[in-house]
């Protein structure tokens, strides 16, 4: 039996849905244990234990893991690695931060952001901002893999696996936590929202971005996304950026407004089920992938759309 260890994504109180999605990929490889590392995160371990078909949950609770710093979390994974054939994490900013460190210390190549498990040693991953898909095989004795969560459905939460507390005396003198500025938690989460409305440079100002986009998002129960240009211009915070180097989303409905459709932006949203684009330039590249294309001035079209929903 192939044994897989999956690193859970969480904020010490809630298990992020990314974990249940990565679990689907992990289960396609072998038998799965989930590692919940954090501080005062017993509730997270409990949520992980109900994921269907999970073998068990390992719960490591310590101040050292409170902020998911890569150095100690990688050391913890390394301590456990001997028992496993594969180590997985969702390709969240934490997963991407920690896993390559583990791979290097195990002397193996990481396989980044898989979108398909063909066999326990064969995977598909996007390269060149999703403009090509690579099918590859890894002959490494241990596989270290991050999972693009939009490509996998979440496993159900209706089981009950045992939770095992593990202790370690890992310390960290390489890095320390200074502070954080977190996004407004009142808004819908971009990576899991069913609908995303995204704005680009064309809004011209933070005021217009918020005045026009927020009411539309509210009517639709949608999360707010943004292009890099909109984030660079401070219309929206960095955690709203969708794209090659921002977040990858695959909602049922993605509405791109005043966004040209650069390949780096498309990389983050072209797997949405339905794409609507509103742009004043009828040749905008975004229209090439839109299911519904509206050539219009956003300053008129957006309020009208909001009022007609």
């Amino acid at each position, binding site marked *: 039996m192939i044994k897989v260890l999956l690193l859970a994504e969480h*904020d010490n109180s809630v298990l992020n849905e990314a974990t249940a999605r990565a679990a689907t990929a992990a289960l396609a490889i072998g038998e799965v244990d989930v590692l919940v590392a954090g501080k005062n995160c017993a509730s997270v371990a409990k949520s992980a234990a109900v994921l269907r078909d999970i073998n068990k949950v390992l719960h490591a609770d310590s101040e050292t893991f409170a902020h998911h710093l*890569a*150095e100690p979390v*990688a050391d913890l994974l390394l301590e456990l690695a001997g028992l496993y054939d594969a180590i997985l994490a969702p390709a*969240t*900013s*934490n997963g*991407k931060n*920690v*896993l*390559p*460190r583990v*791979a*290097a210390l195990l002397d*193996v*190549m*990481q396989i*980044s952001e898989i979108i398909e498990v063909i066999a326990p040693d*064969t995977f598909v991953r*996007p390269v*060149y*901002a999703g*403009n*090509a898909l*690579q*099918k*590859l*095989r*890894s*002959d490494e004795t241990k596989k270290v893999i991050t999972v693009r969560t939009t490509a996998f459905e979440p496993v159900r939460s209706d089981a009950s696996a045992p939770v095992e507390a593990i202790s370690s005396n890992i310390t960290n*003198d*390489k*890095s*320390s936590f*200074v502070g*954080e*500025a*977190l996004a407004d938690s009142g808004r819908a989460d971009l990576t899991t929202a069913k609908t995303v409305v995204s704005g680009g440079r064309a809004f011209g100002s933070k005021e217009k971005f918020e005045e026009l986009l927020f009411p539309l998002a509210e009517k639709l129960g949608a999360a707010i996304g943004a292009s*890099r240009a909109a*984030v660079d211009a401070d219309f929206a915070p*960095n*955690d709203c950026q969708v794209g*090659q*180097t921002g977040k990858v989303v695959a909602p*049922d*409905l993605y509405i791109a407004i005043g966004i040209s459709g650069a390949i*780096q932006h498309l990389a983050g949203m*072209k797997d949405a089920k*339905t794409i609507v684009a509103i742009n004043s330039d009828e040749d905008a590249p975004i229209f090439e*992938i*839109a*299911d*519904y*294309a*509206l*050539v*219009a001035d956003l300053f008129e079209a957006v309020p009208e*759309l909001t009022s*007609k*929903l």
Partner: protein
Amino acid sequence: MKVLVPLKRVVDFNVHIRLRPDGSGVDKTNVKMSMNPFDEIALEEAVRLREAGKADEVIAVSIGIEKTQDILRTALAMGADRAILVTAEEDVEPLNVAKILAAVVTEEKPQLVLMGKQAIDDDCNQTTQMLAALLGWGQGTFASKIEVVDNSVQVTREVDAGLQTTRLSLPAVVSADLRLNTPRYATLPNIMKAKKKPLDITTPEELGVKVRQRLTILETVEPPPRQPGIRVASVDELVDRLKNQAGIL
């Protein structure tokens, strides 16, 4: 303090890539190649540290084919003091790159390695973390702000939930995100001056590293195309189609 900046030569971010029809990869013949955009940002930050008196020397290093000298010359024109090319085949995997960079670090003894968060061709996002691991150093990935204070570097990181600030003791490895800075252009006089700056060429063997690729790429194909969409004439038509055709509203 010395700052080492690893740079990758990649297909320019504006190029729409073409795949070879036999599935063997991206066709790079006559395609514009450039410095990886994130690495430009890392280099700019290193040059600014030197200009601010926080660093004394900026060394650019790249692992790649002979032609990679072109981006190293650009790096010298942007302000690097000297450059090192480690000649290798194309598409050396991140683990090998990290091992070669670790060997360069052992020779050069920089206090800070500033690199890109991601190469826009392989989209691996691993080399920084691997290098930090191999050196046993702390890592500050996805940096949108860095401050060198005494024997440490404070890094503001772009994470999924917003921004996280951490402090790393030096030496450390930091990777640049998009909003760290806006890189300068190389001016003509600086391009001329760069021709006289030192550019050393070495090999992985000379550095004591054996390159061994671990992954076998079986096939590289186009993603499935989307069905063509339709133009709608008005907001009313859009709402109607979303409701009655797509069934989503």
